[in-house]
């Protein structure tokens, strides 16, 4: 679109035609206040804070709805505009309770800031204020009508952003209020998007409300550990506790998006059953021991088994960092001399990497003209990716195709929907050939319904369309993708995870951040070492249990479902636990391994080695350190790794493997996942 020139407060500003005046001003460094305007959501012009003078217009105009035009002359700094802003704030405060001292939003409230900047110093309102009691709509969402300024951001983010539309407006005039979809309660994704987008304290969260004040917390931006989408979440920490997660600064790949897990499911870290001391098995059950003793026990047995040429098995994690995964496989291969190393594979990344096709970024999902989703309920399992696609559809009219077994939320925005029986996914995709070939470009996302040979057939199909196609292989948990690329996989001759579990002759099995006993029986009686946060099914069977730090308690990098590498920042400490990387180092040292060859066990040193040795990971460290995301470059397809069948964990919005079981917030919500669109 051609640019136009206009004048704002005497400054010449250039902006693409049709840009909204409020945005053009913002980009020129001129702030026009607004409550209801929110970039990317439908226009409202309801709060009237953005009124400005436009030459030749008889009245003040709302900058939030006015497209810029050539020669337009705008003034935002006149007495009339200042008076208008002041009067709007005076109006909105008339029925506002002014309970800032006890309000959760105090200190980060847009209304407070606005009154501070543009408001009057005193009140002329002498009448009785309207009162309505606060309501609990769900364990997550509380609504306080008197604080609500009716900007309708919550209603829009829920309908437009989430595709849920669980919030509406009832009554009229001064009695208008926001209402939940089930009369007196909410049935929704419980994502909390409405809460964080609320400019005031009208919507508050069950997690955070009345706990602490914004300025009492440290705010640490890190990556959510629950699913593979890799959302940035800023944890509010006070006294070594997470009080909330949010992304109000819209940083990270996810902008303002977070689901219930990224926002409220960090509470697992503080669960009372969290392991805080190492345990060693004795005749009468587990005995708490010191770290020194536990490490000695493990290292002693490992060294002994190694010496006699015994058989090791190592099962890594899809939650731990790239540095930890890399160090673990190196330690297993060089230190323990075993090639039996694997992890719970949740998607067939290996086959996709071997196809050597372009991989999509999360941003591609927002920009691609067309998207094909195969064999997965994206809104349930990858809510951020689903959000990106929905935004793409809303903002760019992207065409969305779904090939799935039952109804999914994306059906609502789909250009075509193909229903298939299990196993019929590829055939279903084939029926879309003519439509897809007409698209200028395409991103294909596939779940575990497509694996092995089928991945090759899918990519062949994509290539045959004659258009640029990019792919996303859907995986679970924060670092499934990294586990593959860091080589937590057996090379030729090594055992896969199911093989290790079924082998009767392992002398030692080392399980890091995984719970294989949940899905597999363990055939033999190996010396079982488990590093975990909780006494999982696997940990209960262990000989030694080492209490590990969670992703929120460590630094390092993780690779999301789209291959984007991002940095974890340590947000707090749980005394008694250690990071997996430190545990590896301590065991290696105690075993007397060649530490020179293994390298130092600090995240930055390990990452430097990864950058040197792992294809595609020679990434700009400065970008990562600044909190940015970089997609890993083309991989070499891991030619040595052994393929094995994959299986998604099948988590939904309200489950998250083991961690989810220990999140009270996730367990408190009542709705059946997906109910909203299956009905």
């Amino acid at each position, binding site marked *: 679109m051609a640019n136009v020139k206009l004048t704002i407060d005497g400054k010449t500003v250039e902006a693409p035609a049709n840009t909204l005046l409020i945005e053009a001003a913002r980009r020129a460094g001129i702030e026009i206040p607004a409550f209801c305007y929110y970039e990317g959501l439908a226009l409202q012009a309801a709060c009237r804070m953005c009124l400005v003078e436009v030459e030749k217009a008889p009245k003040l105009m709302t900058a939030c709805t006015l497209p810029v035009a050539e020669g337009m002359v705008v003034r935002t700094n006149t007495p009339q505009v200042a008076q208008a802003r002041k009067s709007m704030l005076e109006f909105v405060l008339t029925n506002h309770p002014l309970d800032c001292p006890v309000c959760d939003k105090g200190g980060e409230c847009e209304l407070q800031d606005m009154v501070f900047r543009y408001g009057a110093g005193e009140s002329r309102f002498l009448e009785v204020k309207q009162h309505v009691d606060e309501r609990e709509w769900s364990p997550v969402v509380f609504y306080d009508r008197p604080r609500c300024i009716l900007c309708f951001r919550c209603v829009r983010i829920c309908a437009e952003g989430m595709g849920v*539309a*669980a*919030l*509406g*407006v*009832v*009554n*009229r005039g001064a009695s208008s209020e926001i*209402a*939940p*979809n089930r*009369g007196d309660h909410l049935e929704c994704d419980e994502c909390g998007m409405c809460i964080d987008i609320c400019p005031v304290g009208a919507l508050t969260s069950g997690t955070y409300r009345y706990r602490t004040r914004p300025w009492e917390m440290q705010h640490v931006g890190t990556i959510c550990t629950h699913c593979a989408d890799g959302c940035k979440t800023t944890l509010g920490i006070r006294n070594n506790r997470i009080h909330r997660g949010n992304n109000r600064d819209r940083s990270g790949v996810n902008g303002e998006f977070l689901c219930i897990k990224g926002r409220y499911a960090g509470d697992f870290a503080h669960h009372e059953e969290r392991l805080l001391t190492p345990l060693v098995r004795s005749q009468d059950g587990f005995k708490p021991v010191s770290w020194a003793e536990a490490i000695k026990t493990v290292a002693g047995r490992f060294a002994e088994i190694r010496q006699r040429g015994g058989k090791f098995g190592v099962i890594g994690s899809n939650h731990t960092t790239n540095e930890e995964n890399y160090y673990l496989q190196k330690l297993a291969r060089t230190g323990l001399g075993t090639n039996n190393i694997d992890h719970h594979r949740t998607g067939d990344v290996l086959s996709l990497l071997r196809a050597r096709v372009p991989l999509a970024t999360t941003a591609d999902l927002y920009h691609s003209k067309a998207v094909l989703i195969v064999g997965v309920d994206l809104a349930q399992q990858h809510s951020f990716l689903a959000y990106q696609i929905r935004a793409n559809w809303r903002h760019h009219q992207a065409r969305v195709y779904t090939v799935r077994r039952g109804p999914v939320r994306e059906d609502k925005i789909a250009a075509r929907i193909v229903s298939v029986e299990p196993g019929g996914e590829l055939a279903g995709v084939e029926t879309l050939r003519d439509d897809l070939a007409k698209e200028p470009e395409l991103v294909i996302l596939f779940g575990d319904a497509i694996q092995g040979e089928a991945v090759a057939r899918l990519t062949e199909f994509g290539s045959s369309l004659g258009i640029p196609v990019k792919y996303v292989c859907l995986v679970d948990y924060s670092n499934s993708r990294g586990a593959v690329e860091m080589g937590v996989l057996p090379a030729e001759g090594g055992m896969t995870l199911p093989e290790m579990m079924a082998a009767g002759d392992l002398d030692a099995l080392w399980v890091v951040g995984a719970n294989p006993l949940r899905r597999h029986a363990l055939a033999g009686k190996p010396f079982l070492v488990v590093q975990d946060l909780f006494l999982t099914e696997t940990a209960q069977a262990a000989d030694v249990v080492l209490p590990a730090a969670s992703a929120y308690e460590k630094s390092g990098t993780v690779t999301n479902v789209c291959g984007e590498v991002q940095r974890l920042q340590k947000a707090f400490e749980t005394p008694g636990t250690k990071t997996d990387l430190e545990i590896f180092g301590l065991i290696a040292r105690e075993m007397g391994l060649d530490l020179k060859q293994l390298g130092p066990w600090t995240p930055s040193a390990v990452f430097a080695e990864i950058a040197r040795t792992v294809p595609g990971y020679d990434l700009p460290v400065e970008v990562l350190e600044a909190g940015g995301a970089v997609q890993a470059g083309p991989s070499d397809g891991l030619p040595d790794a052994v393929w094995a069948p994959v299986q998604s964990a099948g988590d939904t919005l309200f489950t998250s493997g083991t961690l989810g079981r220990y999140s009270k917030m996730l367990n408190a919500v009542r709705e059946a996942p997906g109910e909203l669109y299956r009905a």
Partner: protein
Amino acid sequence: MTFSPELEAKFEKLLKSYPPGRQRSAVVPMLLYAQDELGSVTGELVEEVARRTGITPLEVNEVVSYYSMLSRQPRGKYHIQICTNISCLLTGGEELWEHACRKLGIGNKEVTPDGQFSLEEVECIGACSWAPALQVNYEFHHHMTPEKLDRLIDNLRKAV
């Protein structure tokens, strides 16, 4: 949910009055006509209208709570709506309203214990030149006086 055959016929006609895919347009008329039959907008009605027009119950509730003629509360068999807006006010609408409250012993949006009458103070009903005016259900009564109101109520009582 089942309605009378007449109402069903009305619904059918309504749903055909709007272009294909625009059946949501029928929501307000459906609610009002159904309220005439049921006495109020019940939760069940909300669900039913949502189902028939392809929107969510929340969307129906947003609408119900917006329009002043739609009521979740049951009304009397005779719903007396007295206008006290400016033209009626100038010609005795307020006295008429107070008289009605005293006569029936109820206040705004209340129902007599026998369920026969309910009262509502309403905004202009488009009878300003023949004020003060009121409506009983949908029937207009112009140039009202307290005496005429007494007679009207007494006659309605007898009809009961």
